[in-house]
């Protein structure tokens, strides 16, 4: 099993370790609910070093990135970040990712842990004709996410980068605990927060994590694991690759039209298929639901819409902050309006669910 450079800290903090995408990572420390509520009310500290970092450098770096992604990277300027889809020819997802514009002719693409090798091969293959160097530096970088209302104060104790003026989806380079780092105002929880990317050996990386946890105590911030990360992102309706988005559902079906820029300057993979689909209209759509009946609908549980079997729950959980059973699923477009009811099979029972507005949770600004 692979270990992040922060691994030793998880054992010191008594994390409950599980295998996740080949990595030895904590599913929780003090408890999933406690950690989830901490992020919503104070703060949580996550090791997300398993995420991948791919660098694009060269005269045609922008063209190469533009050719690969659904969003319009030409809108970026140094210090800005964009969420985008890495798409197949049919407009479905190879992965979803963040694009950081480091400077002119240099971009950092942050990808999902499970997809690093697949994405890197795809990126190299489809940018061979551009004057660009594509480099997978995932193993060099550690990443820590600090999320929640106290994140700014807590992280500020560790860095010379002024955090207060930093806007959402912006980043800066500076020093964190004496190490060169990229600090961005981003996250996967629906809260304000920061993600720190840095290169360090295991001792220094673990120390930073432990120091954040220790300093976090005075703000009631807690180390948090993969369990809370998943329930937090689902309450905020942030898609998970492999569950809610994959290589058989398009960007439009995933209700992510806002990351699709069909009119950008550079032609991109999936553009033609998506232009056609936009013209013809989609026939199914990713929606958020709540259970009307008691129970919890989880990933893979079968759906029945108007008496007809129709796919399965893509993500589902009991939402610890909202205190109700929520989930995501693809429904036929004609049955996807807010308030529409459908059924979910939970073992031998059938329960009723209804389509609701999303995100399920939105933080107060």
């Amino acid at each position, binding site marked *: 099993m692979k270990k992040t450079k922060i691994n030793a800290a998880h054992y010191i903090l008594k994390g409950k370790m599980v295998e996740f995408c080949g990595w030895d990572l904590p599913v929780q420390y003090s408890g999933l609910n406690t950690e*989830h509520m901490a992020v919503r009310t104070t703060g949580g500290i996550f090791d997300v070093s398993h995420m991948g970092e791919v660098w694009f450098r060269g005269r045609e770096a922008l063209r190469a990135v533009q050719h690969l992604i659904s969003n319009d990277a030409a809108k970026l300027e140094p210090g800005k970040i964009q969420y985008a889809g890495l798409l197949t020819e049919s407009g479905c997802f190879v992965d979803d990712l963040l694009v950081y514009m480091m400077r002119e002719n240099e971009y950092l693409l942050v990808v999902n842990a499970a997809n690093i090798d697949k994405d890197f091969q795809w990126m190299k293959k489809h940018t061979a004709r551009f004057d660009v160097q594509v480099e997978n530096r995932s193993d060099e970088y550690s990443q820590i996410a600090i999320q929640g209302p106290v994140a700014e104060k807590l992280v500020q104790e560790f860095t010379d980068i002024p955090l207060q003026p930093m806007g959402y989806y912006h980043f800066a380079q500076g020093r964190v605990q004496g190490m060169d780092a990229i600090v961005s105002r981003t996250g996967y929880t629906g809260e304000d927060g920061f993600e720190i990317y840095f290169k360090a050996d295991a001792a220094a990386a673990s120390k930073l994590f432990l120091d954040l946890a220790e300093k976090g105590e005075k703000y009631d911030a807690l180390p948090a694991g993969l369990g809370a990360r998943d329930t937090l992102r689902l309450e905020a309706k942030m898609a998970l690759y492999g569950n809610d988005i994959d290589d058989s559902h398009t960007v439009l079906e995933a209700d992510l039209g806002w990351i699709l820029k069909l009119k950008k300057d550079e032609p991109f993979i999936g553009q033609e298929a998506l232009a056609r689909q936009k013209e013809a209209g989609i026939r199914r759509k990713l929606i958020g639901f709540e259970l009307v009946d008691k129970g919890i609908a989880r990933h893979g549980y079968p759906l029945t819409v108007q008496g007809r079997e129709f796919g399965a729950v893509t993500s589902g959980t009991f939402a610890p902050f909202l205190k109700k059973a929520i989930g995501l699923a693809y429904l036929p477009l004609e049955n996807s309006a807010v308030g529409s009811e459908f059924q979910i099979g939970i073992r031998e029972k059938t329960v009723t669910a209804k389509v609701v507005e999303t995100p399920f949770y939105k933080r107060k600004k």
Partner: protein
Amino acid sequence: MAKENLLYSKDHEWVRREGDKATVGVTDYAQHELGDVVFVDLPAAGKELKKGDPAANIESVKAVSDVFAPVTGTISAVNAKLGGNPELINQDPFGEGWIFSMSVNQASELDELMDLKKYEEYLKGIAGE
């Protein structure tokens, strides 16, 4: 707590035998592994079950797990308090967090269960894995 007088399964259920009645819950180890319990799907009273059949489901935030019938018999009572307070399973697994009672027709079916000493050894074996 009279944990000494209970019987234990490899699935971390406890069984309290009182004459021809068996009351079933999950152990402290089980509630800890499950994490915060948010919903318990209880069987209907009168439901007939074979030994080993799933009798109830415990849903925590992160997972669902079955509670199995320790013997063949009929559900005689369920803990209705769990409907509004599923967290009783976390707070008092051996007491207020009991799940259901059932009739015992063949007491010999309980023979495979462990006493406290054996269960504690079984837990040590799990911890050592």
